[in-house]
Every structure is written in C-alpha cells, then in structure tokens.
C-alpha cells in the first residue's frame, strides 16, 4: 500500500470536517504499519502474510448484484436497515428509521449536519495511536452508519446495518465505520451484518464506536455469516456509564467454499465499564471449516466499582480451521466489588483443527470476584451413540450435538428478533430442520 499517495486520493472522498483527525491517524498508521506475528496481539494471526501487497484503499465500485437483491428480499420487509455496498451508502436499498428522538444517517451526512456531536465522539474510543487497524480505518474511512438516540428514547425494532461486498476489484480494502451514541436511559438493538456477495476474495476493516450512557441499554449483534473468502478485521469499542448495559454477540460462520484458504476473521471487542454498576455481556460463537482462521480478542475493562461482566465464547472447528481466543479482564484499582466471569469452549471436530486459547486477567483491586474457564474437546461419544442408536446418521447426530453446544450463545442474545434470526441461521448452517 502506498499510503501517502492513496491518502491524497482519499482526502476529498470523506468530509473536510474530519480531515485534521484523519491526518493524525494517517501519521500514526505510517508509524505502526501492518502488525507482524512478533506483535503480542497478533502472535497467532499472520495478517501481514495474508493481506496482499497492492491493496487499494480508495476504490469506488459500488454495484448492486443479484446476491444483494436476494438477500434483501429475504429480510422482513419492514426491518430498519442501512445498506452499504463496498463501503458506499445506498439509500435506495435502505429503510432509515424516522423516529422521534432518534437520528440515523450515514456517517458522511452526520459529519456535515451533526458536526459537534460527531466531533465529540468520533475516534475517541479507539486508540488509533496504538491500534494498527483503527489508525488505518480512521484515516481512510469511506462511510458507515451514525445512530444517535436521545434521552429515555427506546427504539423497539432492531436496526440492521448491512455491509455487502460486491466489488470486482480484488485489491479493494474497504474501510467502514459506525458511530453509535445513546444518551441517558435510551435503548437500542442493532446488528452489523457483513456478507461477501461477490465471487472474489474481499478485504475489509471495520470499526464501531458505541457510547452507552447512564442507564442506557445496547444490544449489538455482529453477524459474520457469509464471510467465505474474506479477510475481515472488526473492531468494536464501547464505553458504558453508570447503570448502563452493553451486550455484544459476535457470530462467525466461516466456511470458505472455493477453497482458496483465505478466510480470516479477526474480532477486537472491547467493553469499558466506566460508571458504577454497569454491565457488559460479550458473547461469541464461531464455526470454522476448511482453512478458515477465526481470531477473537476480547477485553472487558473494569474501570469503575460494582460492575459486572460475562464473556461466553464457543467455537466449532472442522477441517484444518484454526481459532484464536484471547479474553482479557482488566480490573483497575478503583474497580472494587467487580464481578467478572469468562468462559471459552471449543469443539474440535477434526484432528487437524486447532485453537489457541488464552485467558488474561489483570487485577489491581482486592475486593473482586473473577473467574475463568476454558475447555477444548471433542464430541461426547456416548451422546453420539445415543442419537445413532435411534437411527440418526452420524453426520446428523454431529450436527445436532453441535447445535446443542452452540445454541447457548444464541440464547444469550437479548434482542428477541435478532435471537430468532440467529436461531434460524444456526439451523440453516447445520442443515437441521427441526
């Protein structure tokens, strides 16, 4: 990537209001570059080798194709949605909510029309001076979604933010970004839905910043259900104030179907509990097949006292798929009476599949309850035999037991419509029709 040259092209692509910040981020990225495996946080994910040399950060192709139309047609017709193709907003494919006390628009529009609000929040949760991909994203963001919910406003229906990839340019490296702000007592459910709707390999780098105000509630589902032949880097940063609740479910079904072996998904999900009595649920479910590589890096940062957090991650790896789980719990000196829980379980369905699982607890307060557990295993032979002894084939019995293992994570999704959606997807993925 010739970053400097690309930036000259990108300068005018996004709003001029954002320029000073983007220039800072560019400078940071030029120092940081793409991380190598020598970097502690990228030890098991060789992103440097995976990303092509000649990536373009400024492609503008944004074609609608049949895959996109079909998918949109399959959604409930009334569902709120913001649709982006290769990072470009398509209002004609979107149903933007028009609700009292709620602002929903593209990030570009927000920079132009809600400048004060955006400038106060944009780039403030991600640490772009240290995070390679946050820096790159901040400098080169094409567009994304902006959601602001005013005090005590409850949004009842989920908003789907859809990122489709339809590009014909195999070198495109799409940079998208969401900014979500909830004022005190507000409530919102939304999904970030990523799909490769092209038949080529795609690369993208997505960042979301979510502000959860006092006593506000956010449920976010990160859906990575059709990310075959994708290299996707996701960053989700949240800060939760007093009595607020943030819950994120990251669901990855990565099954490369052309066997190019390029599927690589990295998720960085962070919840910072900055006000007393705040709560975070960070859950994840990932399925990897063939040569897929799925890396989940999670951090719950307990800054304020009396906060609680749960992490529940489950993975199912088949073929030669590899998984990485890194779950951090930081308890800062002031965060007394913290109650933090972490569980990571992986099911290895083949001898070649593997996972690197690492809990990382850093506790600087004395009156806290923290627990973590990790389990890596195979399917229970007795359960498999029990199902087969009733006439169910080994393949189907395996799918049923995988469903049993996985559904717990889906059950933890707070938003009922999103939970139902995921439950159906899980059955589809496992080809179960019960």
């Amino acid at each position, binding site marked *: 990537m010739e970053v400097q040259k690309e930036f000259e092209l990108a300068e005018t692509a996004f709003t001029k209001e954002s320029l000073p910040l983007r220039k800072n981020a560019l400078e940071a990225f030029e120092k940081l570059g793409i991380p190598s495996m020598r970097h502690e946080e990228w030890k098991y994910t060789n992103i440097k080798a995976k990303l092509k040399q000649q990536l373009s950060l400024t492609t503008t192709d944004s074609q609608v194709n049949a895959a996109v139309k079909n998918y949109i047609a399959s959604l409930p017709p009334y569902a709120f949605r913001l649709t982006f193709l290769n990072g470009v907003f398509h209002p004609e494919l979107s149903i933007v909510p028009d609700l009292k006390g709620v602002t929903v628009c593209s990030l570009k529009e927000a920079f132009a029309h809600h400048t004060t609000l955006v400038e106060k929040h944009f780039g403030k949760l991600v640490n772009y001076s240290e995070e390679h991909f946050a820096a790159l994203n901040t400098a080169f963001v094409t567009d994304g979604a902006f959601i602001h919910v005013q005090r005590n406003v409850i949004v009842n229906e989920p908003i789907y933010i859809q990122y489709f990839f339809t590009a014909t340019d195999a070198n495109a490296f799409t940079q998208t970004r969401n900014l979500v702000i909830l004022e005190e007592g507000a409530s919102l459910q939304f999904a970030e839905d990523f799909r490769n709707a092209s038949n080529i390999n795609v690369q993208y780098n997505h960042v979301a910043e979510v502000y959860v105000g006092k006593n506000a509630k956010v449920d976010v589902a990160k859906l990575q259900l059709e990310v075959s032949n994708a290299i996707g880097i996701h960053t989700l940063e949240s800060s939760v104030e007093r009595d607020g609740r943030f819950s994120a479910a990251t669901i990855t079904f990565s099954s490369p179907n052309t066997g190019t072996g390029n599927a690589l998904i990295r998720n960085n999900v962070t919840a910072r509990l900055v006000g007393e009595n705040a709560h975070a649920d960070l859950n994840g479910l990932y399925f990897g097949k063939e040569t897929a590589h799925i890396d989940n890096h999670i951090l719950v940062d307990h800054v304020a006292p009396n906060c609680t957090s749960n992490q529940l991650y489950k993975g199912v790896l088949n073929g030669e798929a590899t998984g990485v789980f890194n779950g951090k719990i930081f308890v800062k000196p002031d965060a007394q009476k913290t109650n933090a829980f972490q569980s990571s379980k992986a099911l290895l369905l083949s001898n070649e599949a593997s996972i690197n699982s690492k809990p990382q607890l850093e506790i600087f307060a004395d009156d806290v309850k923290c627990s973590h557990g990790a389990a890596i295993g195979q399917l*229970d032979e*007795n*359960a498999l*035999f*029990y*199902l*087969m*002894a*009733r*006439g*169910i*084939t*080994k393949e*189907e*019995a395996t799918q*049923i*037991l995988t*469903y*049993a*293992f996985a*559904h*717990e994570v889906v059950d933890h999704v707070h938003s009922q419509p999103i939970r139902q959606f995921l439950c159906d997807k899980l059955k589809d993925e496992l080809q*179960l*029709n*019960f």
Partner: protein
Amino acid sequence: MLSIKNLTVAVNGKEILKDFNLEIKAGEVHAIMGPNGTGKSTLAATLAGKEDYEVLSGEVIFKGKNLLEMDADERAREGVFLAFQYPVEIPGVSTTNFMKAAVNAKRKHNGLEPLDAKDFLKMMNEKSQLVEIKREFLSRSINEGFSGGEKKRNEIFQMAMLEPSLCILDETDSGLDIDALRIVANGVNKLRNAERSFLVITHYQRLLNYIVPDFVHVMFGGRIVKSGGKELALKLEAEGYDWVKEEVEMI
C-alpha cells in the same frame, strides 16, 4: 427375527461374551437374568452397534440381514431398539426435536416423506400417553435433570415412537418406583404384538410379573448357561444364583 451364533466379543482386549448363542422368533419375549458383570449390557450394546465392542467371532442375523455389518444408526432404522441402562443426558436438544430427527430418519429409510408438523404432534401425543409422560418433559433437553425413573420412561416413550421390531430393554425396571414400574410395563405390553420381539434384561422377577416372558435365560461368564420358562425366574428369585453356578461347575 434374531439369531445369534457363537458370538465372542471383547472390550479393551478382554473377552466378555464367549461363544454366546440365542434365537428369538417374531413375537417372543425373552428375559435374561444373571449376576452383575456377566456381560448382559455388553450383549445389548453389541446388538445396538456400539463401536468399542470388538466382535472376535460369531454371527448375528437380524431379519435375514447380517447385523454386524451395519453401523448403529442403520441397525436402528432396520428396527433394533435399545432402551439404555443409563440413558444419556444431552443438554440443548429437546426430546421433541430429537424424536423428529429420529422418526424422519426412519421414514426416509423406508422411502417415506418426513412427517408434517401436525401428524408428528399427533404421534407425540398418542405415544406420550402410553407411558403417561407429561408434555413438558418432551420440550425439555433430552434427559437433562430427569430422575432415574423419568429417564426410563423416556426410553419407553422413544421406543413407542420408533416402533421397532426388536426391543432390547436393559434393566429398564431398575430405579423405578412401584407405580412407574406398572406404567412402564403397561407401556411395553401395549407394544407387544406378533411381529415385535423383546429381549428384557433384568435382575428382578417382579418385572416379569408384568411383562410375562416366553423364555427366561440365565447368563454367566459371558454365555447363557440355563434356559427355561417364566417359572425359572421365580426359582432364581427364591434361591439366588448359587445352584445354577454349581450346576455349571459340575459340567
């Protein structure tokens, strides 16, 4: 229906069944009794197709087919049913969904379309009444948190759903209270017919008061050492196994 000839089976290199022979005709009920550790469950699991059981010699013909060549799932679809001595708990899958998959697997095997939701529900209602199982149990995860007796009832419910030709009951009476024993036995009796055979493994003659067998066999050291009618069970109940043991040792 079932013909077992000179069957020798090892588990972890140890011979458990030794030169075992048994013939079961359609419609017959055979009971097998015998001290702990003589290989009764090994026989049941071998017939059901558990992989850890290594058949060293012998043959098993079921409805004219070589049973030993089939995997466990195929045997079940062909009509073999094992009611487990220790039913397995499977959190996260309801008995309803489990039975939907099992019933449809069998239908597919017989060239039939899957049951639609309405017919399936009707079938569930019918069969659950047979063993007086409450509907709420069927929507719970398979056997999870069930009492010993509830698990056994669930086994017989599944048996009723799958309508097998050979029903192997491995100590289905153990852990049942008097009422549950009667309910389970009634359920089994309702399923008895001229085409369906039963192999009932039990330690207690009591069960055989309800499910009256055509034959009673005593198993010892991996083979049947004595066979008789239902009166043999009464004698065993009254006198224990010592006299059988002596008879065997004399030979």
